[in-house]
């Protein structure tokens, strides 16, 4: 499936990393993209480059770089930061995180917090299933007739970029990736007639 909310982790400790990965897998729609070590060179630039939705950070992994990296990350309005916090985490560090995964919390609470951070609205919106919009239906019809993205764009006076976005959304909504799969769907639901297909 297409990724919906992309997550990156900064954590040096393998055991903790596996634990966080396990949590992420429990929530459909979240996808773990990559794990970084806290002492990597140009960590901030690397993270920003990925355009993450969420970064889970272990202050212990960042060590002395903590303040400088966190301050910069917090200036990025589109990125949410979740802190992995220990009981003895100093107040000046803890308070940096609006969202936290506390070491001592049980699984239920950890999942709750993770979901909160992702914003249930965002998840619901991105996960929206079901019926295709009118525009998407028009594009679906052309695609299953065998037109390429470029041909669809020319025919409907759209940019190729727009057509590709629509196609991505169609695939997301229907869970069907190939053109021949889409054709079966379209025929099943009488969106096109068998005679229209070349």
């Amino acid at each position: 499936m297409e990724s919906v909310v992309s997550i990156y982790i900064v954590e040096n400790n393998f055991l903790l990393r596996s634990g966080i990965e396990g949590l992420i897998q429990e929530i459909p729609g979240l996808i773990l993209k990559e794990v970084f070590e806290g002492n990597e060179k140009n960590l901030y630039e690397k993270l920003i480059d990925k355009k993450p939705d969420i970064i889970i950070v272990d202050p212990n992994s960042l060590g002395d770089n903590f303040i400088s990296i966190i301050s910069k990350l917090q200036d990025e309005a589109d990125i949410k930061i979740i802190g992995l916090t220990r009981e003895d985490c100093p107040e000046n560090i803890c308070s940096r995180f609006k969202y936290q995964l506390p070491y001592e919390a049980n699984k239920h609470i950890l999942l709750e917090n993770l979901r909160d951070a992702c914003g249930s609205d965002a998840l619901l919106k991105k996960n929206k299933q079901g019926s295709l919009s009118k525009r998407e239906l028009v594009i679906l019809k052309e695609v299953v007739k065998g037109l390429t993205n470029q041909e669809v764009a020319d025919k409907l006076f759209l940019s190729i970029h727009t057509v590709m976005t629509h196609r991505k959304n169609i695939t997301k909504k229907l869970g069907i990736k190939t053109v021949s799969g889409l054709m079966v769907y379209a025929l099943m639901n009488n969106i096109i007639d068998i005679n229209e297909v070349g």
Partner: protein
Amino acid sequence: MLIVGEMKLAEVIHHDYNLVPVVNRFNIPLGFGDGTIKQICAERNVNLEFLLSILNTFHDPQYFPKDHLKSFPASIIVNYLHKAHTYYLDEKIPQIKQMIKQLFELSEGNKKTLNLISNFFNNYCKEFESHVDREEAEVYPYVLALEEALKNSSKEKHINEELLKYSIGTYEEDHEDVEEKLFDMKSLIIKYLPLESADNKLFEEVSYSLLRELFVLEKDLNEHSRIEDLILVPKVEGMEKQYKSKL
């Protein structure tokens, strides 16, 4: 779990029953007794290191075979991959087709959707077959010829020009479309299989089995391409280097 030679094969299968068809491909059918993997390999003349790397690749998506495990000859890998192909084409796919046929017989409603799904699967099979054919007709003979040439090259000074024209790199094409079609097949069944009346229990049962078989096939195929990418391709790349160095 890292699977090692000292483990009992039966316990490994208890732990991950997806490995049954894999073990089967090594001519170790069920009823293999109480031995460790090492013992069973020795009894049946199976290359232990190769079996271990295949079992681990299958069992753990994170597993990456280490270099010393690639010491087995390429012909063993090819032999294994060939057996897997036979398993897909002669067993799995006919089994799935048979289930689709059963659905037709059991369905009391409109057959239009079933027809579409069935055609879709048949097209997938054709595509898959031609993919397999290409590997069997081009790639594997090349690998075997290369291995043979390397074996003999100490005696002969002669270099086979034909072998230099090909490279395993060209074979690393994408299996993507074939994989995506199988995924779509699952989606079509999960989401769009036609409704039958609630008391058509047999239809329901067969459609569940069909879906399960598709999942099993998909997993097997994914691991198959990982074995090609992680074991066969690096092995052959090494052989190509070695062969060229003799020029």
